[in-house]
């Protein structure tokens, strides 16, 4: 296979505090292929949004990248000077955030914001940029785009605003779009529309997507592969169908069982006891060991690395260590 579009290797993000340094991301590695949609799931505090922020170089201080590398199409981007990183952001990586109100400037019309973004990154005339902007808005499903483009963000409803944000993220034709909880602030009936638009327009333009969400349903419908984060570490990564229907990591198994669905009939949901550890109290060995049903001695002392399980699947769990069968005999 060709080089992946995005390659994250052993990414470590730390927050120095006065009580010691907290490790919020601990040796996270994954790739995103050209045109692929990678879903990133995890509970709050698992580090999924931080991963996105680290990639686009927008970590909130005092957070910092303390190790690892991030490569965008063969070019290392985690150590770029801020000036160069700014050009990568927007031009090559587009962003869609949870709250559409904060990602649009309330003082400028949608046209002004779109045209400025297009002209910052692509060398076109004002007129051409406006034509492209109208085309984009039309594409993301804004009715009467040519007229509504001159409206201010507050003239749009929540769902329409998120469509504008998607148009803005795609204005410079980026190679990668990072969408951080793009539907969380929206109503159920609007969520599906937004996910559809995001998925279609990215596919059309060949942009890869990193979709960060806590909603497994959204991942199931959108992603090609899914990465499961737990306490800042990668627990499992693989094709979405495999992970959702036959999860291997005990955490993912528990997570899937705990989601009520419209079709299930069980009286009780499977539940994982306890809660994810705070960053200052991550246990030795596997971070999941206090809550794991399958825990054994090795989990308590040694941290499992991602183990290849065939078919692009990787699981960080000692249950799947090739040598384990040998030990058991």
């Amino acid at each position, binding site marked *: 296979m060709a080089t992946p579009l995005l390659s994250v290797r052993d990414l470590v993000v730390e927050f120095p505090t006065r009580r010691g340094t907290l490790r919020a991301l601990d040796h996270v590695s994954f790739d995103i292929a050209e045109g692929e949609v990678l879903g990133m799931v995890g509970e709050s505090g698992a580090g999924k949004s931080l991963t996105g922020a680290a990639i686009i170089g927008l970590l909130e201080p005092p957070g910092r990248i303390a190790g690892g590398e991030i490569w965008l199409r063969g070019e290392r981007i985690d150590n770029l000077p801020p000036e160069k990183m700014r050009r990568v952001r927007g031009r090559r990586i587009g962003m869609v955030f949870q709250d559409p109100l904060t990602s649009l400037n309330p003082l400028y019309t949608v046209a002004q914001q779109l045209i400025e973004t297009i002209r910052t990154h692509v060398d076109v005339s004002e007129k051409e940029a406006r034509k492209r902007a109208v085309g984009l808005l039309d594409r993301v499903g804004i009715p009467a785009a040519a007229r509504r483009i001159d409206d201010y963000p507050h003239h749009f409803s929540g769902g329409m605003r998120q469509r504008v944000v998607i148009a803005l993220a795609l204005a410079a034709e980026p190679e990668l779009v990072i969408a951080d909880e793009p539907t969380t602030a929206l109503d159920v009936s609007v969520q599906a529309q937004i996910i559809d638009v995001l998925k279609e327009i990215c596919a059309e333009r060949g942009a890869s997507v990193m979709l960060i969400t806590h909603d497994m349903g959204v991942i*199931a419908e959108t992603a090609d592969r899914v990465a499961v984060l737990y306490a800042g570490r990668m627990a499992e990564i693989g094709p979405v169908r495999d992970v959702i229907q036959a999860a291997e990591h005990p955490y993912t198994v528990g997570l899937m069982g705990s989601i009520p669905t419209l079709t299930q009939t069980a009286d009780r949901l499977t539940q994982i006891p306890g809660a994810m550890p705070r960053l200052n109290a991550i246990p030795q060995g596997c971070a999941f060991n206090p809550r794991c049903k399958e825990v054994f001695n090795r989990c308590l002392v040694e941290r499992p690395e991602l183990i290849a399980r065939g078919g692009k699947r990787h699981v960080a769990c000692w249950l799947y260590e090739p040598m384990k069968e040998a030990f058991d005999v």
Partner: protein
Amino acid sequence: MSDVLLSVEGLTRRFDVSKPFLNRVFEREERQFLTAAADVDFEIRKGETFALVGESGSGKSTIAKMIVGLLEPSEGEIRFDGKVMDFASGAAMRALRRRFQMIFQDPFASLNPRWRVGDIIAEPIRTFGLMRGAAIGREVGRLLDLVGLSASDAEKFPHEFSGGQRQRIAIARALSSRPEFIVCDEPTSALDVSVQAQILNLMRDLQDEFGLTYLLISHDLSVVRHMSNRIGVLYLGRLVEVAEAKKLFLDPQHPYTRMLLDAVPDLALSGRRRVPVEGEIPNPINPPPGCAFHPRCPHVMDVCRRTIPDPRETDSGTAACHLLTGQPVKAAV
């Protein structure tokens, strides 16, 4: 039919959203009202879980707040165990108040950060004067135990707990006055899924143990489906459909219910092709005339634009849609 514990009739709440008086005079604007709940009728039977689902602006939280007395209804009547709830009469309400409780959405806001957990849980016991002295401490320990925490947690402050544990504390507080009826306003929407499962299971167990009746407010259809016996679907302040939970999901009668079900992402990866939902919720200050859902409805007829449909009997309950031909619930006046 089993006994009705709570019934709501013609419940309506209007909010005055007018601009200040001087602005109205200068800008020549009328007073504006937002009708958050309009003419809502339903009954909750003893021991069941009745759910109200709806999107933002549907009025589900407004209805919950009116039932527990946090908001005064503009019109309509709430009866609890046959008695009309009149929150203005303090003395008469005291005995009734002990019998219902509420669990809130945000466990980070629902516990006073300056109070110890033991005092938080004991507040209803002290307010209703149910116990005194050392008995309160023992009861708090028992309640903490009941919700899966330990009696020694009574000494701690809320910030020492995770979101899920805080919601357990909130549940212990709600149970401390030994209520029969608990209004649960989005009890898990601020929690992660794995914690949500713990809380939902706990609520189930407590219901079985104490014969509790729940009113569950949620926007999450999967949660509602899992928890409830009967479901009311709200759209822009009106109840569009009420049905038994299982039947609602198999055979939704109202087009809005069907649309809402279609919008739920499919975790089973069955390849079910979802019908994309059209449009968004209109501004509740100026709802569309007639049936409020008509601008988004795929089956819209002329009559829908003019008259508000009355609820009619269906196989599974009632629904308010001009397409339906069942018996009207209320006799025409």
